[in-house]
């Protein structure tokens, strides 16, 4: 038979750091750059994406036996679009101000490659337990990635964290951090840092052997 499929626990752990959606897979770059100007919007986006990812992955996993190869992408997109619509309406009903702040980026979760990628790689091939583990791990990794960039941008850009004053009032606030250039700069720097650290670790591991 084909090679051993990862267990649910392995899927979960892989998603957090080793296969982190932002720093390793470089997926979902659009929301990463757009909504990370503050921790509040970043975490809301992470939560909405988690909801869609978990529901879509579970659904695809349950119906994986019925999928036609040439229609599977259509089924993925249909499911993802439905769950995103539910998430969008729920946000507009229960977190109206945040919904207005996030604007078009919640509906854009539909085209977040991360979700359709997990459906294809894991949901369509493994059972619900593995799909759930994968979705949870990737969601956590996505939240970690968004949070790291948002923390950077909010603290340096406004001296706030989740809206609370973290740096002294005297901090001038680097306005560029809140604007798109700041997003690109932060992502680039943090990505470089992650690559550097993992390269060092790999070299150390090889040296140890």
């Amino acid at each position, binding site marked *: 038979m084909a090679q051993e499929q990862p267990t649910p626990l392995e899927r979960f752990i892989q998603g957090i750091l080793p296969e982190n959606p932002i720093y390793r897979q470089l997926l979902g770059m659009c929301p990463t750059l757009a909504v990370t100007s503050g921790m509040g919007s970043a975490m809301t986006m992470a939560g909405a994406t988690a909801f869609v990812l978990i529901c879509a992955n579970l659904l695809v996993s349950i*119906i994986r036996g*019925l*999928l*036609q190869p040439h*229609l599977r992408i*259509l*089924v993925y997109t*249909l*499911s993802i679009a*439905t769950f995103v*619509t*539910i998430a969008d*309406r*729920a946000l*507009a*009903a*229960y977190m*109206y101000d945040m919904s*207005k702040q996030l*604007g*078009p980026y919640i509906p854009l979760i539909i085209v977040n490659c991360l979700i359709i990628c997990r459906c294809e790689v894991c949901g369509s091939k493994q059972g619900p337990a593995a799909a759930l583990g994968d979705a949870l791990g990737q969601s956590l990794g996505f939240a970690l990635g968004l949070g790291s960039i948002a923390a950077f941008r909010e603290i340096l850009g406004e001296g706030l964290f989740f809206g609370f004053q973290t740096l002294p009032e005297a901090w001038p606030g680097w306005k560029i951090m809140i604007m*798109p250039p700041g997003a690109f700069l932060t992502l680039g720097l943090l990505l470089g840092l992650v690559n550097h650290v993992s390269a060092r670790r790999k070299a150390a591991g090889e040296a140890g052997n």
Partner: protein
Amino acid sequence: MTEEENVRQEPRETRKGPGFLGQAWLVLTLSICFGAGLAAVQAKLGPIIQKNKDNEMLSQYTLVPTAVKGRFLEGNKDVVEALDAGDKLVGYVVKGSGVGFADKVEVLIGLDGRAETITGIFVLSQKETPGLGDKITREPFLANFRGIPADGNLEVDKKGGTIVAVTSATVSSETVTYTVNRAVREFQKWLSTEKKE
């Protein structure tokens, strides 16, 4: 031998794949189920979302100076009466909408008690270009509409008027200007008929 081979091969050649329904039944079933699910979600959440939107409009009584609360006009969700502490009418907040560069633009316009002065505007919703057209939601563009006469003939500076348009966002700026004009004129017409009664 050859005949057997031919017989064995024929079924494979003439066997047709599943027809349209055989292939599409899953997609069709999912579509129907999702559609029903979303309809249920809309039925449950629609009223809550509408309430949020109403509250947002009511909270814009602040467009009228000296007002401390707002209340919808009887049976008219497009107009909010701005009241002071003694429940006296001090102004109105009128909703207008127009088609912007990208999509619909909704604007709230603060008017004084006699609808003769525009006290300010607030852009309720827009989908204009981020960084360009969406500057209509911020200063200094909003300042164009603070304390100006409500003559319904505002024009952007490019066409010789008083409204300083956002650079590189003329269409968005014009949309807001003409939306304000239209809403103000309609409201003034309505107000004059109300007063006559």
